[in-house]
């Protein structure tokens, strides 16, 4: 998943060589790959991701040629990492996101995966996920993915309620989801469902229906996000014009609490603010890599990458992206090299969101000083804090950014 607006940063060199900092300690860090598939059947009204409908693009950016372009970046990545002094590492996790990756034929996805595995190899028990739209998979395509090395599929279910799906511009019919889940199970894939709450017009009862329905499909993992109205989206314009009601944070809070309770009853536990899994092993290891500051290379237009405190992002438009790679140049649009303070800020910001929590003795004195106030405010678990780990309470998860700010003061 790549948000549309790219950060401002430093320019990135055409040869893709990274600042020296990227290689420091790399042997001890795990390595992941993200592959962005920038295609969707339709553009959803709430979505600000870097994605395009089938007919919008041509050349190396077209759907037919895209896999070859992505494979080209895999090769480029290997060369750039080597030139930057990074040791060869096997892939710990791979994640195909979009867009709708499954709009590409399964063979194209496995072709990209195959190129990456051929390049770097896979660690034993590596996690390989693709996002999928329930409409864009079949029994055969899911089997083909599993056979090609995928271990996990994450379905964009979003809601079980038709009028909510309509506001979101989602095209799939709710009945399609259990079918897709069943095929994925048959193929031996681990299954995750994505849900969105707080869509304009969604009642608390609608949301409860969605949660209960999703749980009824027996997923190993659920991600539940509050709807974020991004500037520039169709939904933002509709809200601005008063055509649909705006977003209410209190409503979001109530729905989060309801979902957390229902997930808990069904045996799923939170491991990150917006993510729940049946067992710790079912947690999405690829996403954990983001939160734990591992290294990853992001392939595809607008994709973000991170290596040892160097973050960069590719040019957004698929055509520009394809042109760069065809010319043998880095597709990076810009990058930033984080200093120690900024890396520490990110570490606190990201690990405080996890149920594994944040070791309190790694905080600076003012951060440690804030801990008592967070306990008093009911934002962190007191017993875990006594044992040296900062872990959010339910209230704290809803006020996670406030906790981070308190720790950063």
């Amino acid at each position, binding site marked *: 998943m790549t948000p549309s607006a790219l950060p401002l940063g430093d320019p990135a060199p055409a040869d893709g060589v990274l600042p020296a900092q990227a290689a420091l300690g790399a042997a001890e860090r795990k390595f992941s790959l993200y592959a962005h598939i920038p295609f969707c059947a339709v553009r959803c009204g709430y979505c600000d991701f870097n994605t395009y409908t089938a007919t919008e693009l041509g050349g190396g950016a077209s759907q037919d040629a895209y896999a070859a372009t992505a494979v080209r970046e895999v090769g480029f990545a290997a060369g750039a990492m080597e030139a930057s002094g990074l040791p060869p590492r096997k892939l710990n996790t791979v994640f195909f996101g979009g867009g709708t990756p499954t709009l590409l034929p399964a063979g194209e996805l496995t072709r990209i995966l195959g190129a990456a595995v051929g390049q770097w190899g896979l660690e034993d028990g590596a996690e390989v996920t693709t996002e999928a739209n329930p409409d864009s998979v079949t029994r055969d395509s899911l089997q083909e993915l599993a056979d090609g090395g995928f271990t996990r599929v994450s379905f964009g279910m979003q809601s079980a309620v038709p009028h909510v799906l309509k506001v979101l511009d989602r095209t799939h019919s709710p009945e399609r989801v259990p079918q897709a889940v069943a095929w994925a199970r048959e193929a031996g894939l681990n299954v995750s469902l994505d849900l969105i709450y707080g869509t304009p017009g969604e009642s608390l009862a609608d949301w409860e229906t969605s949660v209960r329905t999703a749980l009824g499909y027996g997923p190993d993992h659920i991600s539940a996000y509050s709807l974020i109205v991004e500037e520039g989206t169709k939904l933002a314009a509709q809200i601005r014009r008063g055509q649909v009601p705006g977003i209410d*944070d209190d409503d*979001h809070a109530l729905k989060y609490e309801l979902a957390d309770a229902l997930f808990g009853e069904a045996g799923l536990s939170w491991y990150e603010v917006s993510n729940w899994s049946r067992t710790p092993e079912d947690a999405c290891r690829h996403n954990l890599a983001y939160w734990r500051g591992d290294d990853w290379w992001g392939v595809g237009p607008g994709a973000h*990458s991170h290596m040892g405190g160097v973050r960069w992002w590719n040019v957004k438009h698929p055509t520009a992206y394809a042109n760069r790679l065809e010319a043998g140049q880095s597709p990076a649009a810009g990058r930033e090299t984080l200093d120690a303070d900024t890396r520490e800020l990110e570490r606190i910001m990201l690990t405080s969101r996890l149920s594994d929590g944040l070791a309190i003795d790694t905080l600076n004195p003012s951060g440690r000083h804030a801990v008592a106030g967070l306990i008093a405010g009911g934002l962190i678990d007191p017993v875990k804090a006594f044992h040296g780990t900062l872990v959010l309470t339910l209230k704290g998860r809803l006020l*996670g950014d406030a906790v981070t700010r308190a720790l*950063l003061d």
Partner: protein
Amino acid sequence: MSPMARTAPVPAATDPAIIRNFCIIAHIDHGKSTLADRMLQLTGVVQQRDMKAQYLDRMDIERERGITIKSQAVRIPWELDGTSYCLNMIDTPGHVDFTYEVSRSLAACEGAILLVDAAQGIEAQTLANLYLAMENNLTIIPVLNKIDLPAAQPEKYAAELANLIGGRPEDVLQVSGKTGMGVEALLDQIVRELPAPVGDPQAPARAMIFDSVYDTYRGVVTYVRVIDGKLTPREKIQMMSTRATHELLEIGVSSPEPQPSKGLGVGEVGYLITGVKDVRQSKVGDTVTTFVKPAAEALPGYHDAKPMVFSGLYPMDGTDYPVLRDALEKLMLNDAALIYEPETSAALGFGFRVGFLGLLHLEITRERLEREHNLDLISTAPNVEYQVTLEDKRVIKVTNPSEYPSGKIAEVREPMVAATILAPTEFVGAIMELCQTRRGILGGMDYLSEDRVEIRYRLPLAEIVFDFFDILKSKTRGYGSLDWKADGDQVADLVKVDILLQGEQVDAFSAITHRDKAYAYGVMMTGKLRELIPRQQFEVPIQAAIGARIIARESIRAIRKDVLAKCYGGDISRKRKLLEKQKEGKKRMKMVGRVEVPQEAFIAALTTGESPKDKSKK
């Protein structure tokens, strides 16, 4: 048409008979500075290429606001019928806050140009200054300005002026400072009509200070008008109010750049430099004499500037306190009317209680402190000085609600003002309603012309310092104007209203109000704070109370969600930047107990009566 003077009279050797001392009385935007600029240009004292718009207004704030705070004097040569004359133009502040300074400027003159916008007519402050001029027996030359404007109504306002000061409408001069039309005729008229100064050249020297300005390089520059005798360089002078003596390092005239001279004689206007660093040693209204041959009697009219409005000034960032202290010290050098003392607020930390002549003085001072010293300041709601008599007959002065005694009070007296409001007659009803709700007592009403009226009210000063003028302006669609002067005091039924956040009193929001208005204040302030204070992680009750009795309450619901749901690879940089921004924002928060109150809340809640929504549009 008069030519530019070929030979300018020499300072210290100028016959009083060829001197004309005058000032221009005008409302803020009626074009006084433009006219003055035009005069400087026509008489050749400022070359075209040196011309800055509004040459005499030196401070940035003055130029931006188009108003004059500090007066200065310029010596202008002008020839009429073959004689070279020396005109001294004394620039006066135009605002009611500076009435005393205006009166001293007027006392330095024999005549005044009454300058009125031909499209707007006379305003209350102008009228007030006109009264002061007449009290000082000045000869008035009525002039309509901006007659080039399409909206000008010269006949109508000439009649109004003639009605006011006597004379015939056709004697009212018509000029345009912008185009220069009629300005030469005005200069001729000044020479013809204004009396020459009269004084005794043999008597001990007496010169009246009408302004003193602190200059970083030269120290205090004192502007004087010589009444009797003569001042010469290098002699020892004495201030008659304090008997302090100073060496006269330099004496001269402004034209408009300073030009040292061999002295100043009877009727002349110029500047003195003694090397002192504090304008308090050179007070406006004081009489300068010589140490060797001192005058027996000071000139009349001197008194110390008396602050009328008090406000707490606090640095937004507590570590800026020393910067604020130094800044006030510096400002004081240049502003004899400014007084201050350290003060501590539980909500705002360390700051100063500062006394001002009025609200404009407060605003200008705050703006200068912020701009010239790079400070972020919070100013608390302006207060007047109350005289509180306790049951044991002890009398205390209260300029800050937090000093208001909580025990038994026998009597409270509040300062009163005599207010004059000018407005078109159609607004009389609205104005009377406003004054009535402000506890005013009608003193009288006069028609200036068929459609303009002067209304006089006696009002508590406290009722006009907060938002009276803004409301008057809006109720009269901008046409109403206000002037006021102190008018004794009165016994009043006053109470202190406290504001509590989460049960904790916020001293900065306390107010002393009339008992009948306490409830309205409580409702207004709690309502405003509910809008201004962001939601916290806990519910925040906001209460207004008199003593232990709660009179109004509001509540800010706890924030329940403050977390970004999605935080994946591409979101990290974005989210980090958002957090860094929020961190910056938090620095602009003041902690009141556990409640984070943004600076904007203090400013919006304390400075005006308008709702925060209106405020944010500006």
